[in-house]
């Protein structure tokens, strides 16, 4: 349905009609393919930063057409705003006005990425004001963008710079089609950890990755994406889902492990399989999850307890076992949800579990870092899956088109791209991150 509508409002006579009637016209998003260029056109780098030249050199090395200060009449594929050395809100004016002019030249699928410093309670009020102000700027720009273009930010913690490995990795992620459904979001570079991949098309080369809940939907998309990015994948799902699990495994050369993640020995079984059969365990994607929606007034123990058991308690138990095993460099990426951030009617149990994932990630970052690893979460918004296809058409149309800046639901692959990125070695400096993949939905922070 969404595809048909999108097709009609974006082509031929029906496009003119839709424009005339002022119907929402959800743009076709620029999604990743290993052969596609990083950006649809030249990139303009605005702003002063001590590492600006280093950054420009890197962008040139990435094969981009880089402009400083002014792009002339050229259409732009990307815009980088270096705002990390501003100290007072009054300094924003010239840069932002120049950025505004540049936006007029931005191509469909273009990207705006702003670098800034984190607002801190310990900083001077002027500095904290400008830093927090940039947060508002990026989110507002996201709302103003058209044609599937997005605006996102990279926040550089003390001691890091635009040249830090994870800052560059985040920039590349935002530039590429991998971030198609990420809009108005920030990635925080916390350390200088991280190693950029030898081959950007295979960031997970040589890694052994386990994906739970991989038999269908978002889990299957994650498995396929990790495999495309070079990982040897182990797909895990409930024994009863084994038939579709085998299909996913056989489509990507993975091995299938039929396992209930709530089993007490689930982590041990995962480690035994990954290490015994593939030699190591480098990445675990906690994707398995269920919904048992009911208004809290009508909630029963069965619905509440099963959601908590599958969506969060199992992850806590498995992580404890992974930590105890001291697997070197183990990275974890968990599935949170915008319901866990903004809440959702009928989902107190689900929101408890998904908010729980976010809390778990924040509190586990140091623990995984001790063995050279990391943990992160992705919070999807409205994603088009078999599950959401069951939502009534009217509600679904509103949820997918009207609420998010990108005027459409995301695809499972959009979530998968973010997970693959956060699970890569290049993202080590982003440890503890929770990234929303929601098309800048109105709900949530």
């Amino acid at each position: 349905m969404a595809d048909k509508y999108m097709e009609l409002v974006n082509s031929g006579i029906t496009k003119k009609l839709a424009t005339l009637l002022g119907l929402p016209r959800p743009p076709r998003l620029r999604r990743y393919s290993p052969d596609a260029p990083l950006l649809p056109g030249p990139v303009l780098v605005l702003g002063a930063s001590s590492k600006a030249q280093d950054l420009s050199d890197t962008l040139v090395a990435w094969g981009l057409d880089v402009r400083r200060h002014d792009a002339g009449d050229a259409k732009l594929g990307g815009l980088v705003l270096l705002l990390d050395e501003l100290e007072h809100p009054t300094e924003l004016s010239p840069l932002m006005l120049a950025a505004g002019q540049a936006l007029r030249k931005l191509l469909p699928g273009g990207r705006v990425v702003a670098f800034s410093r984190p607002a801190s309670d310990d900083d001077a009020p002027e500095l904290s004001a400008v830093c927090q102000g940039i947060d508002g700027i990026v989110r507002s720009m996201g709302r103003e963008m058209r044609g599937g273009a997005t605006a996102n930010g990279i926040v550089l913690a003390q001691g890091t710079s635009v040249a830090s490995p994870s800052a560059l990795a985040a920039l590349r992620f935002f530039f590429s089609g991998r971030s198609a459904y990420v809009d108005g979001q920030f990635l925080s570079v916390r350390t200088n950890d991280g190693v950029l991949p030898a081959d950007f098309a295979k960031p997970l080369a040589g890694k052994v990755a386990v994906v739970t809940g991989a038999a269908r939907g978002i889990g299957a998309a994650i498995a396929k994406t990790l495999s495309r990015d070079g990982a040897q994948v182990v797909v895990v799902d409930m024994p009863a889902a084994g038939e579709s699990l085998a299909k996913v495994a056989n489509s990507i050369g993975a091995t299938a492990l039929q396992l209930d993640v709530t089993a007490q020995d689930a982590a041990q079984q995962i480690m035994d399989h990954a290490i015994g059969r593939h030699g190591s365990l480098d990445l675990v994607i906690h994707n398995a999850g269920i919904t048992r929606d009911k208004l809290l007034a009508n909630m029963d123990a069965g619905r509440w307890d099963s959601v908590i058991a599958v969506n969060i308690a199992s992850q806590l138990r498995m992580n404890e076992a992974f930590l105890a095993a001291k697997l070197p460099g183990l990275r974890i990426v968990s599935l949170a949800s915008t319901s866990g951030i903004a809440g959702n009617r009928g989902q107190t149990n689900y929101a408890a579990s998904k908010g729980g994932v976010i809390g778990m990630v924040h509190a586990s970052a140091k623990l995984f870092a001790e063995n050279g690893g990391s943990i992160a979460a992705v919070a999807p918004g409205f994603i088009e899956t078999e599950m959401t296809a069951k939502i009534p058409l009217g509600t679904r149309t509103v949820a997918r088109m009207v609420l998010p800046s990108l005027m459409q639901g995301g695809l499972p692959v959009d979530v998968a791209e973010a997970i693959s990125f956060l699970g890569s070695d290049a993202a080590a400096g982003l440890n503890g991150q929770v990234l929303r993949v929601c098309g800048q939905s109105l709900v949530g922070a």
Partner: protein
Amino acid sequence: MSQPSVRNAVIIGGNRIPFARSNTAYVNASNQDMFTAALEGLVARFGLQGQRIGAVAGGAVLKHSKNFNLIRESVLGSSLDHATPAYDVQMACATGMEAIGSLANKIKLGQLDSAIGGGVDTTSDAPIAVSDALRGILMELSRARSTKAKLAALAKLRPGHLAPAAPGTGEPRTGLSMGDHQAITTKKWGITREAQDELALASHQNLAAAYDRGFFNDLVTPFNGLSKDNNLRADSTMEKLGKLKPAFGKNLGDAATMTAGNSTPLTDGASAVLLGSEEYAQANDLPMLANFVDFEAAAVDFVHGAEGLLMAPAYATARMLERNNLTLQDFDFYEIHEAFAGTVLSTLKAWEDEEFCREKLGLDAPLGAIDRSKLNVNGSSLAAGHPFAATGGRIIASTAKMLHEKGSGRALISVCAAGGQGVVAILEARS
């Protein structure tokens, strides 16, 4: 007989689809669909995508003529390298045992490094043939050159010729069903109704418990919406089983003891077992669950009443034990296929019987009793069902896993088959 210098054949693992009672979950699935599904689950479990396996062997008891190359066609529909050779095997209900045993021998001899053996059967999509009379007329028609000859052939057609010939499980030489044959044996050995019902109940309880503890998580892959054997009755009781009326040997009157509860139902399903040399398993980081030590086939003359139809495994076991210098008590698991509860109990009783062991098996002393707590510990065919050719693969994979879990010991497997045949095998844990 001295052991020739051969290498070990190891069982790496297995996969089957859940078994379904005839005309239930798999009513629209063909033998090829089901065996392909069993292969695909095996490929997924062991990461065999695109791999060239040494050979795939298996078969079906009830087979359409169009499925003359059933196993090869299944391989072509799978994710295995299509350069994997495959062939059909047929030995009634012992098809899976014979296929896997022969593959193990080839591995031992160094002719194969890896192999997949198994079987499949459906009675929901059974081949229905035209009557012999109609077939004769149709053949004559196809040979006829002139219109006159064609008309002459067609003129022979009678309405009665149109009745289809459905395959049965009856023995061609006696006309008796397998159940009626077993009923004779069951009576001869004095097996009581209660003993048969107890064995059936244990089968259901053991299989249900095995599912509950996740034993089948790496042995079964769901198919067509079914994730467990649908013949399993976890809540079965002696009382419920006791209420069933006799289904076989009805001519025995009050002495009839065999019911639908203590006999296997017609079942659809498929199984596949991955075997290899130790080198193959090590090179591919694959587990080694158990060694396939030996297997032996036997056949008896049931036609003239000299022996019961399903008693051949009793003979095969005696020969295999002697060859391996083992006694019947040297095993940690006994997997005796439950075609009928009466089959298992008659076999056990025969092994304990001095006269049978002396007269029939030519032994000085009876093979003796087994520890019944080691018999079919995770359930067998009475609970799981019995898709004829798929049963061997089911038992071999499960038994190998049991030995692996125990970490030591030996298992005896016994499968009876139509035509008065049977195949038995020894598996051994890897130390």
